């Protein structure tokens, strides 16, 4: 395990912050926690390179704003955003703003550990494109026009019902298309699909 790999946690909920820190610490990461985005921002330039885990919904400065400010200062931290239920549109925005992954709360510990590992890998080889994302570009061509439309709807953060309405098809049909899109793109989760699709250059509506 990466004894000198740094992980920074920004979350306004003390219990979530502390527990995640304990978990990552138990897994051998060097962890530092911040209760406010501003605190992390203030400390960021002096911090060793590491992975940032930020809650997307926080008072004062949210995860998206934090990403923007970091970019402004040319500070680069591979970022994972944590979202609550039904925050897909926010998550997509975070991904477009450069976040590597988003994870929906409540999450399985393994999901966040995998994501952190991937982010730290990225830190070591920043210019290397995510291999599964590269593959996704090729897979994109496998999608039918209708599947492509459904994918774009998903990237816009729309629920199935809205996509169905926009495309004048039944929600059931959208669900079938959605499953095919996931299969064809080789994505195991919505966040992976969003990541692949963005990497493959799919534009959202």
């Amino acid at each position, binding site marked *: 395990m990466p004894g000198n790999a740094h992980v920074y946690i920004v979350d306004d909920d003390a*219990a979530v912050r502390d527990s995640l820190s*304990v978990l990552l610490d*138990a897994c051998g990461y060097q962890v530092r926690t911040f209760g406010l985005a501003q605190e992390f921002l203030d400390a960021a330039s002096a911090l060793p390179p590491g992975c940032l885990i930020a809650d997307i919904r926080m008072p004062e400065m949210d995860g998206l704003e934090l990403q923007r400010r970091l970019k402004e200062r040319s500070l680069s931290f591979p970022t994972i955003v944590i979202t609550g239920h039904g925050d897909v549109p926010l998550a997509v925005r975070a991904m477009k703003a450069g976040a590597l992954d988003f994870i929906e709360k409540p999450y399985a510990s393994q999901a966040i550990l995998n994501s952190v590992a991937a982010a730290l890998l990225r830190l070591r080889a920043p210019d290397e494109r995510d291999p599964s994302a590269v593959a996704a570009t090729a897979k994109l061509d496998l999608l039918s026009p209708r599947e492509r439309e459904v994918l774009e709807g998903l990237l816009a953060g729309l629920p199935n019902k809205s996509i169905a309405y926009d495309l004048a098809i039944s929600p059931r049909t959208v669900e079938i298309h959605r499953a095919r899109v996931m299969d064809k793109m080789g994505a195991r989760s919505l966040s992976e699909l969003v990541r692949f699709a963005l990497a493959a250059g799919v534009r959202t509506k």
Partner: protein
Amino acid sequence: MATQYARERGGGQSDSLYRAVVDTAVDAIVIIDRAGEVRSVNQATERLFGYTPGELVGHNVNMLMPEPYAAEHDSYLANYLRTGAKKIIGIGREVAGRRKDGSVFPMELSVGEARDGDEPIFVGIIRDITERKVAEAALRESELRWRSILDTVPDAIIVIDAHGAVESFSPAAERLFGYAAGEVVGNNVKMLMPSPYREAHDDYLARFASTGERRIIGIGRIVVGRRKDGGTFPMQLAVGEFASPSGNFFTGFVRDLTERQVSERRIEDLQTELLHASRLSVMGQMASTMAHELNQPLTAVTNYLEAGRHLMSTGAAAPERIADLMEKAVTQAQRAGEVIRQLRQFVSKGETERRTQNLNQLVEEALALALIGARQSGVLVSLELDRELPPVLVDPVQIQQVVLNLVRNAVEAMEEVERRELTISTRPVGEKIETSVADSGPGIAPELANRLFQPFVTTKKTGMGLGLSICREIIEAHHGHLTFSPRPGGGTIFLLTLPKTSQDEPTDAG
């Protein structure tokens, strides 16, 4: 006139009495001879026609008539004297009179025949019916106006007699129910109702007739109607009552709640009125907040426990370290429990107000409300409500929320199937009252069955998975149970059980 007459007859006490009577009469009295010449008139004649007695006596009575009566009168008289054929004498007729100023007015004329010595004389009594005619015309106009209103109002209007026979059926009712008025008028109004209302309606009428107990008159309710094609629909019914000499009648005003013309605003008004929409949305927001509030401690619990497991698997951690993590996890689990407790408190105590209620009525209204907009989905609804159900002590709004929720779920579950049958029934079972909502949908997947009432578990594409868990909370707070089972032949039955007798509020809802 009378004075003159008296003078001619030679005077006397009987004459002055006669004169007083004649002059007191409100009606005009004109006496003519066989030639049609006026012999005498009373004071009312003077008032009515505007002639003085001197201008009339000795002149032909046809001066009091407009054409063509004036020209024809002499020959009428001659004809009568020759043939004895009575056209007016002893009969009375509505004719026209003519005043001195030339104006014409409607009058009722009755004529009697008498003898003055050998000569026949005729007594005409004349009543001005101008006012009555005006009133009649006004009445006719009013009736026409009402008819045109009744024919154009969007509400269907149905008038029935005390026995339920339909007296009138408006064009809007024809459109709404699909029957022509001719098919309905004269028949019992229950033909417009689905079971069990159909069977119960005569009893309602009979009970009202004997006890005067009002269940719907002057109150208005949401009930279910039945079209000619057998389809059912939710409708708002207001009933008025009126007594006429020929008996009591009831007027029903029916508004189709599924009708597209019914604007969204009206439906919203109605829902707000019943507090459903507002409460449900409060509930929805509440649920969303709760989801977030629960996510935090649950995430923390997972993290602490995972960390603990990790440390234990390496064998490097001190037991105190592990114990510390366990302690933290417990604290967070308790925090989640606190959130749940608050939710339960909100649901079961918050604004709850228990009242003695007729469960059938709650079910009917919730059903009608739930079916708004479901008309196109072709759901066949049957109600099997036990009419002898004892009352229950419940928060009506909460119970309606539950029923509404179950019905909506049922309708949604049947979206993808051909046969859409929704059966809702109530029945007393021992010390409890059972309400069941059965659908013919695909049923509940076995892997979900054990977790269906848990929060965040849903079978829907877009759902929070909180509806059923809240429903169960509500029912359990009422000391009842909410369970489900497969429906024989396909589908699901949700069974809601409430205690028959009232119980005290629990001292501790947690």
